């Protein structure tokens, strides 16, 4: 694509993308480390994740202010307009991802003294790995303006939902087996829900990337797989 005649405009748009990339990197780290803290029962790591959320919030504020200033001063048009609006929407999804990672880290703190049955984390680990990949892919899709990659993220969110359904059932089973697991499992359940929500935010970003590239919204209804709202497992 050709460059803007006004060089400082070009630089501002590039700066916006660098900040989004930086924010995305911090959100990825927060999610990965929050899960590590949970799995390894590492309260110091959990504290570090909780502390790092400030940097994410600060970046969001900076990006928001920059977008508002650019709308006021540059009056962006066409793909530039879609660019600044995409940055504004993505930054709010990334901020929410940061919050969800932070909440997961808080739960890691809460359960750090609890004994774990060994296999309890494997379902959650699969979810986190998948969510991290989705997040990385969608950030790459934004950086490369790759709507195909964005579309694949958008379609694959269903798999995180399916994993969440199975983790939900598994954790309920542990709770039914031994009521002493209820405290731990409830925290893990919320942790799993956080990761499922992170998948949804990655999907939002995918939709934004598609709009950024093509100027139109994704046409179909996204397949949704979270069935836990209507699931009831009764104690036999």
């Amino acid at each position, binding site marked *: *694509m*050709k*460059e*803007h*005649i*006004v060089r400082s*405009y070009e630089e501002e748009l590039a700066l916006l993308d660098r900040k989004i990339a930086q924010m995305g990197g911090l959100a990825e780290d927060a999610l990965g480390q929050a899960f590590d803290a949970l799995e390894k029962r590492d309260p110091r790591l959990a504290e570090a994740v909780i502390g790092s959320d400030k940097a994410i919030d600060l970046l969001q504020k900076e990006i928001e202010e920059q977008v508002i200033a650019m709308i006021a001063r540059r*009056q*962006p*048009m*066409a*793909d*530039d*307009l*879609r660019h600044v609006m995409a940055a504004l929407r993505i930054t709010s999804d990334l901020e929410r991802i940061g919050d969800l990672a932070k909440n997961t880290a808080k739960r890691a703190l809460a359960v750090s003294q609890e004994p774990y049955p060994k296999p309890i984390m494997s379902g959650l680990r699969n979810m986190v790995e998948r969510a991290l990949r989705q997040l990385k892919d969608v950030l790459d899709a934004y950086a490369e303006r790759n709507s195909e990659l964005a579309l694949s993220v958008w379609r694959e969110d269903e798999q995180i939902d399916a994993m969440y359904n199975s983790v939900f059932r598994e954790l309920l089973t542990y709770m039914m087996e031994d009521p002493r697991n209820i405290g731990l499992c409830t925290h893990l359940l919320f942790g799993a829900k956080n990761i499922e929500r992170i998948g949804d935010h990655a999907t939002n970003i995918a939709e934004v990337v598609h709009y950024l590239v*093509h*100027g*139109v919204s994704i046409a179909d209804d996204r397949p949704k797989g979270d069935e836990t709202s209507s699931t009831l497992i009764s104690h036999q």
Partner: protein
Amino acid sequence: MVVTGAADEGSRMNEQVRTGDIAGAAVSALPRGAGPAVTAKVRARHVDVFYGDKQALKDVSVDIPARAVTAFIGPSGCGKSTFLRCINRMNDTIPTSRVSGQITIDGEDIYDPRLDVVQLRARVGMVFQKPNPFPKSIYENVAYGPRIHGLARNKPELDGIVMSSLEKAGLLKEVRDRLGDSGTSLSGGQQQRLCIARAIAVSPEVILMDEPCSALDPIATARIEELIDELRENYCIIMVTHSMQQAARVSQRTAFFHLGELIEQGDTTDIFTNPRNRQTQDYITGRYG
């Protein structure tokens, strides 16, 4: 149809009209760059304009809706003003100019040699970049057109036309007590509204505006934009502007010209959020052309 500045070319032009699209009949589908079908007030098909050997417009086809504002945008020398001047045959006044193709208003061929150009220019009013009131009183500026076109039978009728035109142009309140003052004593923005009142006074159907705000300050510009927004309920307004923001603010349809060609036309919101054409995109976002 081929029109030249010289009147004796008229018969040849007429002959070609008859072999091509018949005025008022259905017109062929729009070629490249065309937006979705609209009910056209002004319809152009395959319009070429030459100034001597230089081709200023190439194969322009466009439908311009009634009761809406259509903005023409594009870099200097792109042909947008040339095309605007085809719609009231202002190009006829340039001896070396040649216009070919077809332009109709309500289906009527405006280059038909039997058409009275003076009548056409009453139907198609024009407002220029620099306000150009006559060096006469405010009243006379507005009364001039209705008088020469015989639109008023007596003084009270003429007064009525002058007052209602000034009212519609949003100027009456400011000049009611000094209608005898010279038009040139008004501020720039008021002069431009006087020119709009003058254009409205002869009950045009189409109003052409060639950068009507480029000599005005932001407040006067906002007043003119507000006026344009009101006028579009009753007129087909076609505006050339260098300000993309102005096109985005006031128009419902936008057409982008480049190097004499109509590159893209469409709903203004679509053009400014998601243009289809790379050249349109580069122009409106301020990239190297």
